[in-house]
């Protein structure tokens, strides 16, 4: 039995197909057609039902033969995704009529996808480029399956559009509203978030250095800074709108308040992070406050400062969007979310959420990349 290497995902996928065959009809129209053979009702998967099951079973069987991992992953990938595509495209026009075998087939395809990722995760390519490609492919398949299951379940079960639109509808809305989304991003991210992030983080950093330099500030300011951090943003946002007007400036003010404190606390902690020996060393050189700060304490504080920058990158986005709920010109991501919810355009809300998630990830990723470049020496980055 050397040529066989069973995987539980493959065996279970085949078993699910068998159960699906036993249960029979994939959808209510098909069940009706089976019950009343005289009527020639149209029903989904008329021609593709056996094809899908065949795909799953063949892919599962081939994957359990001892072959090269890359070929095995390829077979599983094609089998899983072709089945999923047939399943989702077939339900078109019959939304909400799916029966148990529909979900069993979906689960079987998902198991093949799971096996595919598991096989890929075990590959250790020697080449650096293929390692990078693999690092991207694995989470991509993972993410794709979240969308596939979301799409298949919302459409198969006919979940009301208001509750949860399928990702395809969100994608279509996204593609059709690019100018509006672009204007919202300009208003919220390029103006309020970026300005507030830079000013808030910068102010937190400068205040931390002042508090470090001037003892009375350290004693007096840090406790007050603590209080500022506890301010509820929901309460502050309307006041900022009254102070700074409806446009992006008031949202930037909210972002400044939100990002100030994490930077202050982290920088203060970071400035205390340099070792005694290193500080004694600087002292024996008769190094003044500023040379010691620039050459020793700030580099040692860099991991803390970048930590704050990463926390702030997500806080800033949340702050700006929530602040727009309290009055804004007729543009902006928060404005769009609050008005489109009112108009029951849930797909537009999801499109904005997708934009926010994308922008937040890019923002975080850029900060993390800069961090890797700056704190290359830190054990957490150099891995030793």
């Amino acid at each position: 039995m050397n040529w066989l290497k069973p995987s539980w995902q493959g065996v279970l996928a085949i078993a699910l197909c068998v159960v699906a065959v036993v249960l029979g009809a994939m959808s209510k129209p098909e069940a009706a057609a089976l019950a009343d053979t005289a009527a020639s009702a149209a029903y989904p998967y008329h021609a593709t039902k056996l094809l899908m099951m065949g795909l799953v079973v063949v892919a599962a069987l081939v994957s359990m033969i001892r072959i090269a991992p890359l070929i095995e992953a390829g077979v599983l990938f094609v089998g899983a995704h072709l089945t999923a595509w047939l399943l989702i495209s077939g339900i078109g026009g019959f939304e909400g009529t799916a029966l148990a075998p529909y979900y069993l087939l979906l689960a079987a395809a998902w198991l093949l996808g799971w096996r595919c990722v598991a096989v890929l995760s075990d590959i250790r390519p020697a080449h650096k480029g293929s390692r990078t490609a693999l690092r991207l492919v694995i989470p991509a398949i993972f993410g794709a399956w979240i969308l596939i299951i979301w799409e298949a379940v919302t459409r198969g079960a006919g979940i009301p559009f208001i509750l949860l639109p399928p990702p395809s509808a969100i994608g279509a809305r996204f593609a059709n509203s690019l100018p509006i989304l672009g204007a919202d991003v300009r208003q919220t991210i390029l103006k309020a978030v970026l300005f507030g992030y830079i000013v808030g983080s910068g102010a937190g950093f400068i205040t931390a250095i002042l508090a470090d330099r001037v003892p009375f500030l350290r004693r007096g300011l840090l406790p007050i800074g603590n209080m500022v951090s506890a301010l509820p943003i929901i309460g502050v946002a309307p006041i900022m709108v009254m102070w700074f007007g409806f446009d992006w400036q008031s949202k930037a003010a909210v972002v400044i308040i939100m990002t100030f404190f994490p930077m202050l606390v982290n920088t203060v902690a970071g400035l205390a992070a340099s070792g005694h020996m290193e500080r004694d060393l600087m002292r024996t050189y008769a190094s003044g406050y500023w040379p010691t700060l620039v050459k020793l304490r700030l580099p040692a504080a860099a991991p803390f400062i970048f930590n704050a920058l990463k926390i702030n990158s997500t806080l800033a986005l949340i702050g700006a969007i929530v602040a727009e709920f309290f009055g804004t010109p007729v543009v902006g991501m928060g404005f769009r979310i609050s008005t489109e919810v009112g108009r029951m355009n849930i797909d537009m809300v999801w499109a904005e959420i997708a934009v926010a998630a994308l922008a937040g990830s890019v923002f975080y990723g850029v900060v993390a990349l800069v961090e890797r470049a700056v704190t290359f020496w830190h054990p957490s980055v150099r891995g030793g």
Partner: protein
Amino acid sequence: MTGTSPAVVAASKLGLTFQTNDGPVQALSNVDLTIGKGEFVSFIGPSGCGKTTLLRVIADLEKPTSGTISVNGMTPEQAREKRAYGYVFQAAALFPWRTIERNVALPLEIMGLSRAEQAERIKRTMDLVNLSGFEKKYPWQLSGGMQQRASIARALAFDADLLLMDEPFGALDEIVRDHLNEQLLQLWARTNRTICFVTHSIPEAVYLSTRIVVMSPRPGRVSDIIESTLPKERPLDIRETPEFLAIAARVRDGLRAGHSYDD
């Protein structure tokens, strides 16, 4: 004062009491010591005898609570402001974000030397500690012994005439330690600096020093000062000569006397 050389360090009736939560702790008491220019003085004693504290007082990292101390005829603080000290710690204390050559350049940058002058001194001191070729490496890419050599290079890069070394080789293995001891003696002969060297090891103290200061704890004090009769030229196998062993025996006796006080 030894011979005709001027005193680099002169301490009299020096005392230091730390205020701790368990009450005052006398780290140093009644230390009288004079170190002449070009001497190699080792401080040896059990933990808690105040040898590191004494080194830190000389370097103005701690303030004495009684007695007087002068360095080059000044207070330690003035000497520190004049950059009289090269201090080598128990660990290399290199900055991980700087390459070895930028680490060696650190004191030079702080003291405001020109780029050309910095480059020249880096090259010279890297040669001196046999680290040429490792200029562009980061500290974490080197072995412990190489890191400690880099930290010695850093202390030698500027013209500090007093080199203070606090158990610099304590964490290294025996072979590396022998090798670095040999190199340190050559360095000392070539540069004619005054060196204060704290150690736990009797052979190391005897091998390196012109004078050995034996200290004992509770309160930290000097219990014996032993002049070395060994020649300035010292190959490693001098450690098997009767003369060497006789000095080592005296140091050991001094340490025992300090310990018996405790029991």
